């Protein structure tokens, strides 16, 4: 059984899965649209949550939220399921494929052997679509890949029932009802408003543009506080979170800027285009930061000066984003 499914590559797994699934159901939303309406852009630095002893930095909203917000705003009804037994989860998947329904699911990257070995850490919130079964292998549309691939039954079971934080527990989802009519314009403004609101107006130091500033301040002290080796490891993690698949921080700035660009064309609003260009600059700045940080990691020299400079760069980014999203908030509030 094989569903006639059109795969399109995307930069971010969750918005890519939503975009691909909806295209199958006859709704044409590009990836930036999904990401923007779902308010995917965010920043948070959570030093009290550690993964392998390294504090968590995220340049995006937590997994699952983009899809939820997007479907709420457009009015799509989604069926979500989670399982305790792998056999049941797989037979349910087969049933859906028999009905000609491609299914989105959460998996662990560690067991997806079509990805390059270097990417396969235990990251348990990767979204893929399974759209068919041939010769015992499942046909997979992984949004970060250029082409569709295959995965064996055993590997898919492992990936869907990986352990650790967060557990996928065989979670799968598919749209059951798509609306005939929907108001894109209001959804777009809701998306923009929430993103800019969360980036600038949450009264907590660890999230949004304030979070970036906070991280910049902490980053300057790392070499003294935790020693050279650790400081470089932590810095490496900040770039990894910024650039790796499905988490790319600067990449998200560009996706959001692309969203604003598309919206300005759609709504004939020039203001959005000029903000989009500013956001592009902010993304470029973040990439510069990653570039220098990469240099520091490569040379393994972390005198306090380099970290101070990196902190300054990040703080400049924070200021710029604060300005951009405050402006965006003002624009969206009147709509």
């Amino acid at each position, binding site marked *: 059984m094989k569903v006639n499914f059109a795969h399109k*590559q*995307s*930069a971010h797994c969750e918005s890519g899965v939503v975009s691909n699934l909806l295209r199958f159901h006859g709704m044409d939303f590009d990836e*930036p649209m999904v990401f923007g309406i779902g308010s995917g852009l965010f920043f948070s630095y959570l030093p009290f949550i550690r993964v*392998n002893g390294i504090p968590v930095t995220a340049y995006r909203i937590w997994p699952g939220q983009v899809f939820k917000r997007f479907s709420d705003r457009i009015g799509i009804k989604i069926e979500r399921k989670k399982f305790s037994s792998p056999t049941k989860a797989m037979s349910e998947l087969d049933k859906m494929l028999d009905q000609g329904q491609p299914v989105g699911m959460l998996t662990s990257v*560690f067991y997806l052997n*079509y*990805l*390059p*070995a*270097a*990417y396969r*850490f*235990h990251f348990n919130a990767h979204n893929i679509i399974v759209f068919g079964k041939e010769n015992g292998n499942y046909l997979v549309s992984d949004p*970060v*890949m*250029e082409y569709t691939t295959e995965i064996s039954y055993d590997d898919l079971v*492992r990936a869907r029932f990986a*352990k*650790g934080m967060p557990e996928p527990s065989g979670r799968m989802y598919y749209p059951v009802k798509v609306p005939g009519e929907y108001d894109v314009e209001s959804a777009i403004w809701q998306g923009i408003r929430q993103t800019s609101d969360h980036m600038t107006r949450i009264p907590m130091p660890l999230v949004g543009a304030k979070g970036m500033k906070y991280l910049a301040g902490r980053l300057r002290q790392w070499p003294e506080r935790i020693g050279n080796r650790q400081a*470089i*490891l932590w810095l*490496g*993690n900040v*770039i*990894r979170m910024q*650039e*790796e*698949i499905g988490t790319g921080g600067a*990449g998200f700035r*560009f*996706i959001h*800027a*692309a969203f604003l*660009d*598309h919206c300005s*064309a759609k709504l004939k609003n020039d203001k959005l*285009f000029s903000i*989009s*260009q500013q956001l*592009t600059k902010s*993304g*470029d700045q973040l*990439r510069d930061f*990653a*570039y220098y*940080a*990469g*240099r520091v*990691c*490569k040379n393994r020299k972390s005198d306090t000066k380099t970290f101070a400079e990196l902190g300054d760069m990040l703080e400049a980014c924070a200021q710029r984003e604060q300005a951009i999203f405050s402006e965006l908030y003002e624009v969206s509030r009147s709509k």
Partner: protein
Amino acid sequence: MNKEHVPQDQENLNEGKLAKLYYATDEKGHYVKVNSIGWEPETVAMQQAWEVVNDDVKDAVELVRRGKASPLLYFIKKNIMTNAMVASYGGTAGFIVRLHCIPYFFNRLSRKRLERYAYTFRIKVEELTDIETIKKS
């Protein structure tokens, strides 16, 4: 980022399997999609993360060689897992897994328990208990 500036660094860890998608601007500042085969800082950050893993594995091999740790520790490190993760695969508790990393307790494990651990690491029981190969690696 201008589409001309999208990095295409040959030295990457993608094994030719992956060319990531980027959104980049054209001359007028409008967004288009561009593929990129790799970028240096990203590669450096990933290499660094793998170095930590490889160091851990090396340390584990050394401990196994000296008889201070059981093969279980080696396989946990090799699969980048934590005790808690292995425990939830094997249906036990984290501190039990830590005990089983000590040779004294590991050598007394039942066949059933060994099979569970072997299943966790996707290997055979013989491979799990084969200390000589680990010592050589």
